């Protein structure tokens, strides 16, 4: 159905107090390789129309989400809307208003890539790194997508934004005297940089090589209170958990560990949420409620300076709504770990973090122990700690990283972590 027809049906239903419509159009090309042969190529051209219907009075706001699919016509759309109104009336939540009309963000769709062409160039960049005799890429999946999002609400807000994403999943494998080991990586970016992709894949293959000769904890004697460095998924989980903890929603449900003024990170460290950061594929100018996003500095000198969140929980707590800001930027004094003994965790089986009790860690597939002179690859052990304690003395590495929703130091450096 056309968006105008959906909006017409929404406007015609007088029981609706407010509505929001998010229409997402995805056009993607996908390549699936086994070793270096292309097994399947795919094209995806889909549209999703999701409506949130609000029914309010002075004391409550009820809402219901409904999805409009390709099979819907005017008759079934009106039926779905009518049912959603009924559901919204049953979902009696304390009153909150929708955000006021926002200044429109209308992005031009000027990046017209030939998606098949980009996908094949990404494949060439990936396989350029596939140059080793004992190491190879076992399987590779490449996704290249244009995503167009349209937002409309009953207040008159209208946004049109365009996104571009490249995602690569690779399984690098290395054989050492017939014994094969592998690693896993899902790499996402919003920028086209083929050389960077080759560099990432090459680093992964060399990590697989390290795992093939990795020793166990029995073979080395780690110093007590060795510095432990974590990156990528674990780093994102740790920093993301801190940000979620000081969200209005956590406060409202009394599940927060921190409040304004509390010490969260080590001295001098700051954390800012930003809508758009170059290279971060989760960047968004507007959130799911249509709020035009601005940067918000949440942590200053290690302490909580500002809480954040969407319009609903901001209203309940009588705070300013920041909207759902997607990208975390971390900064502060940098620590040079390179000369002292340290344990660099390259790859977890599955990084774990329990937001309620603060447990973090997991089984390590590949780590590198620097004994003061050289790196020794290690595997088959676990680490664990408590994030609400450990972050208060965290150090930041000198190197930087850009991840899907994070920009900042490449490594978080912890002391006193359990290694077992």
């Amino acid at each position: 159905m056309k968006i105008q027809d959906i909006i017409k049906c929404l406007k015609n239903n007088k029981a609706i107090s407010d509505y929001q419509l998010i229409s997402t159009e995805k056009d993607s090309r996908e390549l699936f390789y086994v070793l270096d042969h292309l097994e399947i190529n795919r094209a995806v051209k889909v549209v999703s129309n999701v409506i949130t219907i609000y029914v309010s009075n002075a004391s409550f706001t009820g809402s219901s989400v409904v999805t409009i699919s390709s099979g819907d016509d005017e008759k079934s759309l009106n039926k779905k809307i009518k049912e959603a109104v009924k559901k919204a009336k049953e979902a009696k939540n304390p009153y909150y208003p929708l955000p006021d009309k926002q200044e429109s963000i209308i992005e031009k769709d000027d990046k017209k890539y030939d998606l098949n062409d980009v996908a094949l160039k990404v494949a060439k960049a990936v396989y350029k790194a596939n140059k080793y005799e004992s190491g190879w890429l076992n399987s590779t999946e490449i996704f290249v997508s244009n995503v167009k999002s349209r937002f409309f609400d009953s207040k008159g807000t209208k946004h049109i934004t365009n996104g571009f994403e490249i995602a690569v999943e690779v399984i690098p494998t290395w054989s050492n005297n017939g014994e094969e080991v592998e690693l896993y990586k899902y790499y996402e970016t919003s920028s086209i940089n083929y050389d960077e992709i080759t560099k990432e894949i090459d680093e992964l293959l060399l990590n697989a090589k390290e795992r093939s000769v990795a020793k166990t904890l029995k073979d080395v004697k780690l110093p007590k209170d060795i510095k432990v460095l974590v990156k990528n998924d674990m780093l994102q989980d740790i920093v993301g958990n801190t940000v979620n903890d000081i969200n209005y929603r956590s406060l409202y449900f009394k599940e927060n560990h921190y409040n304004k003024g509390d010490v969260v990170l080590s001295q001098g460290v700051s954390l800012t949420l930003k809508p758009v950061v170059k290279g971060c594929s989760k960047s968004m100018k507007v959130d799911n409620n249509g709020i035009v996003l601005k940067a918000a500095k949440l942590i200053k000198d290690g302490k909580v300076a500002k809480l954040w969140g969407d319009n609903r929980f901001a209203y309940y707590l009588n705070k300013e709504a920041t909207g759902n800001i997607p990208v975390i930027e971390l900064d502060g004094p940098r620590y040079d770990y390179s000369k002292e003994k340290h344990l660099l965790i390259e790859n977890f089986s599955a990084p774990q973090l329990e937001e309620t009790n603060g447990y973090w860690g997991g089984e390590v597939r590949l780590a590198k122990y620097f004994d003061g002179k050289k790196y020794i690859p290690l595997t088959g052990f676990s680490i664990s700690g408590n994030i609400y304690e450990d972050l208060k003395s965290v150090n930041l590495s000198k190197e930087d990283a850009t991840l899907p929703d994070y920009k900042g130091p490449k490594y978080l450096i912890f002391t006193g972590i359990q290694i077992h």
Partner: protein
Amino acid sequence: MLNKYLKSSIPAAKNLVKELRKNYDYVSILGSEVLTKRILVGTANTSLDEVETECGFVIKVYKNGRYSEYSCDDIKNLKPSDVKKALTLKNPFTSEFKVKMLEEKEHVEDFLREDKDSLSNGEIIKRLTAIKDDMHKNEKVINVNTVYIKRQISKIFVSEKKCLTQKYDWINAMLMVVTRDKDNIKSNYHAEGEASSLKALNGLKKASPEVLDIAVRLLDAKPIKPGKYTIITDPSISGLIAHEAFGHGVEMDMFVKNRAKAKNYVGKYVASPLIDMYDGAAGVLSAASYFFDDDGVEAHKTQIIKKGILQTGISDSLSALTLGTVPTGNGRRESYKRKVYTRMTNTYFGKGKDKLEDMIKSVKHGYFLFQTNNGMEDPKNWQIQCTASYGLEIKDGKLTGKIVTPVVISGYVVDLLSSISMVSDKVKVIGSGMCGKGHKEWVYVSDGGPYLKAEAKLG
């Protein structure tokens, strides 16, 4: 009843197959509609939404030794030339390799399994509210969420030789309780999975007092001292081990990629002789009990391990074709927008002969582990990581009352499975799980088994 729109799309699908066959050697179309109703009643939040609802099609074609797929929302107005244009690669980057073409047998059938005890929204809200209010009678409880989810799945599969339709429902009911004592916050949950709304909600109500009891007791829980212990796993943790150890490990698309060590262990011992293990949409009635998979292959029950010996893997059609084996009905997609992979369905260990009481009595010092938190596989190197939400200490054959959280089991799959020394005489399969492949491609699964006694590294 099968979704009307999908039913009305069958003639268009047959026509599109006919048209596309002029350019391709094989064509099939999968149509999928998933309607998901979610009702949440929480401490300070109520919602009635349609989430994860979708409707669309995926067209699979074969030519010159390669498969291609086109995912779209509608086929009634789709031109064959649009499909061809989107799937044509100029100078494809690939080595010379030709995948074989799928051969199918004639099969026309309709399948149906619906929720016979459907309840009104008002009735569901009333039942969830009663459970939530019960939890709040305890002053340590700060937040409760009760959730009812009903998924109604309709699918059609159309090719030159097949025209299949299926409609089935699955219902989950969940409870999550958060407790707090000053800065100490803990949570506990329970999930039911049933083919009937009434059974799911009744099950949740029955389980709720114990969920609350554990949520409160967890406030006194300590982290476990890392080390090697004797463990007893509840059916949820047994299922998690089955899933991570020889579920992912025998997905045969991994055999094609030479990514699974299991490929070389068929016919060999991989577990204690007390162990039998199964997977299959037709194995038990649970979260992944469909009638045919996303390749149009009928549901199977596959015995993976028999008396400790690895028997076979599970496969989608394309993997089976490449390996020269029979497909086991395990070809699944996250949605019509995604590729098909070999995926688990309902995965479980078979029952043994031991009584749970005897198993506990036999433990000198160890932990009774409960409730799946999460897990991760490593099919190539057979490392395993399974996290239980909590454990109860056992000393000299008795539960001491001491509780630990969380508990991470890790180690080498064969060591863990070979150490199993007792298997209980009752099996429970829990139909409320989700499983990813790598870190994506989420599908609904169930897993379970009996209580198991084993030796494991805990951290």
